[in-house]
């Protein structure tokens, strides 16, 4: 899955950021098309794995790319990696879709983006090129075992309790917990102490 060389990861990250910047500054449709071709199908898989139907996932992937177009000016390459940024847009649209589905009769509209905006303080790694952080993360994930990667991935897709992950993977509950613990420990080790 993640079998690129470190250079691939960095140059990809830079490439995506450049495409988003092209959209932001001159509404570059070709840049958008490139992003669409690469990300929409992967976002669709993300939505499917999060439980969306085929049609829903297709629509959500389209919505995500539309949001990438509208929000391109908000993308700050210094404070967010391009793929992390796109992931957060997809994530927020997924949350929005899930809430609408539940029809809880919310009495006022909610800005999901704001629910993830918690710091007005200085970015601790503002000086570190974000593309470096992105490739560090990709490389760190490449060091995890297949088992550890699997439990991390599953944690991103839906609210699966450890018991449910254990059931899905047909492994003991204790194994799920220890894999996650080890995976997180390795990630923390590989990524330094995040600051």
């Amino acid at each position, binding site marked *: 899955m993640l079998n690129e060389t470190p250079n691939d990861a960095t140059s990809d990250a830079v490439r995506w950021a450049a495409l988003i910047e092209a959209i932001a500054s001159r509404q570059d449709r070709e840049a958008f098309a490139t992003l669409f071709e690469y990300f929409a199908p992967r976002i669709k898989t993300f939505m499917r794995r999060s439980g969306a139907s085929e049609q829903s996932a297709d629509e959500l992937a389209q919505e995500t790319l539309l949001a990438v177009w509208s929000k391109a000016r908000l993308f700050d390459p210094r404070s967010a990696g391009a793929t992390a940024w*796109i992931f957060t847009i997809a994530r927020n649209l997924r949350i929005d879709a899930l809430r609408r589905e539940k029809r809880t009769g919310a009495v006022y509209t909610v*800005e999901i983006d704001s629910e993830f905006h918690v710091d007005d303080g200085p970015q601790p790694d503002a000086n570190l090129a974000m593309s470096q952080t992105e490739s560090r993360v990709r490389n760190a994930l490449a060091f995890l075992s297949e088992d550890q990667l699997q439990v991390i991935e599953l944690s991103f897709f839906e609210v699966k309790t450890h018991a449910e992950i254990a059931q899905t993977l047909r492994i003991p509950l204790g194994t799920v917990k220890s894999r996650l613990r080890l995976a997180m420990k390795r*990630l923390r080790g590989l990524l330094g102490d995040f600051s």
Partner: protein
Amino acid sequence: MAFAAGVLDLGQHVAIATHLVGCPHCRAAARAMEHVGGAVLTGLPPAAMSSGARAAVEARLSELVPSSAATPARGAAGLADVPRLPHFVRGYPASPWKWIAPKVHLRLIALPVASATRVFLLKSRPGTKMIEHTHTGFEMSCVLSGSFVHAGGHFGPGDFDLGDGSVDHEVMIDSADDCICLVAMQGDLKLNGMIGRLLQPLIRM
């Protein structure tokens, strides 16, 4: 990680977000988890988009107005003066302070969507000793001001405490001023001992 993945129910999300206000280390960790999300995303196998998808999207591009920076959340007067709350939480409606036990008051925070985890502010006067208790579910506490202490440690502004059925503790407010916490809770308190059993019906959080 669950916070960055966006899979927590809103109550727990609020508790974690509140902790992140005061914790740059955890904020950086959450941001790193978003990078993990990005890496997971790019590693996924592509699923073919429907045949008209790209054309439909491209047709809508010209009508989309590019966003400027996000507008700040509507400030409801209710929570505006509570320290260390995330911006988006300040916009939630909250009940007035209600007395729930000697020296303890509570403000229920209304979440805009249903959540298994309920959220409230808890204010306890200095020297208050919360009666020994454990939990049927769990309780996340973020200290907003003041401090408290129990067998598991001392907690001051910005600190985060998680209690569940495995703890059985007596909590004391050791600050000179009121201790105000944001609490996210599932399940109920279980008060211990004879006095606990007598008081239990009277204390509803």
